[in-house]
């Protein structure tokens, strides 16, 4: 469903699919390396009574991961560097970052001020930035959704969510 950036977006290309293919394949090979190293520590051979040691299965899994990623890597490297498909344009990448960075901030912050306050702020700011809604419109929506969540989880289903100073002040 993604990857249709050709129609309206004419901003310059940031990365090609080929480059990303190479990067992801390298990361996967590195991950396979971690798996294989740790499996070797645990032992990958047959042990009397126990049978295959704990590292046996992950070792081969890591090996297959490394090999299949190596094929993807070689294929991508052999491709012509010029031309090729665009992975992401500058403008589109900016859009993605504009969502991703606030999401990371949101995740960090909700550990401190609780999920309800953080969510209300996150929704209001998101609406303000992307939808050009004034905060007077975004804030009530954010607060309303946090309230619904609060009622649903804390009151009806009795599932506790992370809470912060505000909820403590209110006695929860």
């Amino acid at each position, binding site marked *: 469903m993604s990857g249709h950036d050709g129609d309206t*977006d004419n901003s310059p290309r940031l990365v090609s*699919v080929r480059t990303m293919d190479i990067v992801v394949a390298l990361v996967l090979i590195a991950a396979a390396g971690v798996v294989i190293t740790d499996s070797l520590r645990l032992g990958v051979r047959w042990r009397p009574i126990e049978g*295959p040691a704990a590292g046996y*299965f*992950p070792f081969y899994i890591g090996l297959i991961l490394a090999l299949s*990623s190596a094929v993807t890597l070689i294929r991508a490297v052999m491709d012509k560097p010029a031309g090729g498909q665009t992975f992401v344009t500058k403008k589109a990448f900016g859009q993605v970052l504009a969502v991703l960075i606030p*999401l990371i901030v949101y995740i960090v912050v909700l550990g401190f001020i609780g999920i309800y306050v953080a969510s209300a702020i996150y*929704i209001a700011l998101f609406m303000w930035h992307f939808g050009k*809604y004034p905060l007077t419109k975004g804030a009530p929506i954010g607060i309303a959704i946090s309230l619904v969540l609060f009622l649903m989880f804390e009151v009806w289903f009795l*599932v506790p969510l992370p809470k912060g100073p505000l909820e403590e002040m209110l006695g929860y």
Partner: protein
Amino acid sequence: MGGFLVVLSPFNLMLMLVGILLGVIIGVLPGLGGANGVAILLPLTFSMSPTSAIIMLSCIYWGALFGGAITSILFNIPGEPWSVATTFDGHPMARKGRADEALTAAFTSSFVGALVAVLVITFLAPLVAKFALKFGPAEFFAVQFLTFASFIGMGKGSPFKTLASMTLGFALASVGLDSVTGQLRMTFGTAELLTGFKFLVAVIGLFGIGEILGSMETGLAFTGAHARLRLNAVLETWKKLPQYWMTSLRSCIIGCWMGITPGGATPASFMSYGLAKRFSKDGHKFGTGQIEGVIAPETGAHAAGTSALLPMLTLGIPGSPTAAVLLGGLLIWGLQPGPLLFIEQKDFVWGLIASMYLGNIVGLVIVLTCVPLFAAILRVPFSIIAPVIMVICAVGAYTINNAMFDVWMMGVFGVIGYLFNKLKYPLPPMVLALVLGDMAESSFRQSMLLSQGDLSIFWSNGLVGTIFGLGVILLFWPVISWLMGMARQGKTA
């Protein structure tokens, strides 16, 4: 059929209604789908009895299957990957002012597809379960091997990427406490990794966050046809539908096959569409708003989505990511899926099967009557929906285990999902490997123990040998078809 008695309690009927409504909403919203919708709502059901819980969760799944069609037809935006094929003819029909016809056709054929699949489950499941009681660890591993091999054999795109995605799932699944020896694997001294990666978190991140990130690139704008279903249009369409019985039947067979083998609903819908186009006498008109082009993919997708539960119940092997999430739910409720479930938990199994019949009937009525309501949800701008979905995903990830670490992992999986989607690494093999990793590994190790390390146990008798052989053929299918293609070229040249 005591199952219907279980389902007909007022509480369960209410859950069914709630489930379908939630499911349709989930199906309509971008970024929330069957798999992660069920994953997010799973923790809410921990306090219910397993039977009530699975009724509600499976109804969410039926609802999501129905809901995907609404957005495809009215807005040309597939709410779910399996409704992409429905946009080809469904949206052109809506643009010509035949939206109600298209919607009725879609809902009715979804219903037919699901019904046929439930009938298949009703009659086939007890037989498969009985058969599977004879399975030892070697047979189970062979079936699991077949499952994963079929992803490689039947998948589109690079088999190496499928393999990488799958093994990454297996590797993540092996993190944590090893169940056989009690050793710690790949935790590197962190307490959070002790219990391993939770696949529910992975599902929420991969499918939810990943999709929102992807759709932010273009900045989704909903521009769509207005819809109202008039009763006489519904009746008119129903009169026309029986003449397409061949298309329906063909799509049902494709759907059931693709659902039971883990092809899943998405390839089933594309295949049904493709075959309907080839066999229809109006094949060249497909893409301009042919009703058959709506019937075929919807029937296929629903038949596949429903029949995916058959291997989950009888063998403990889910046929789709959503079935995998339901399987995870069963494990959490303390039920071990597999052949024994049919003996030890009769109420549960038949209650679930009865809820499939009723749930789909209720679902059909709800979607036919509530289309304007669901279409209204879609007119809410994306800049409001997107942050709300992010918040819901974060809440869902947290509630699985009350751990902040899981919310972090959700973010990481979101980025992985975005990258994998764009680079055409398939996600379902990874999810299934995450779910089945432990089971596959332990049945492999048990068979090795039985045979004292001799691999020949996998072809030691006819049953295991056949399953394993099929798996090997599927595994090397890309190579075989490539060789066959070469041979054919050689002849013609």
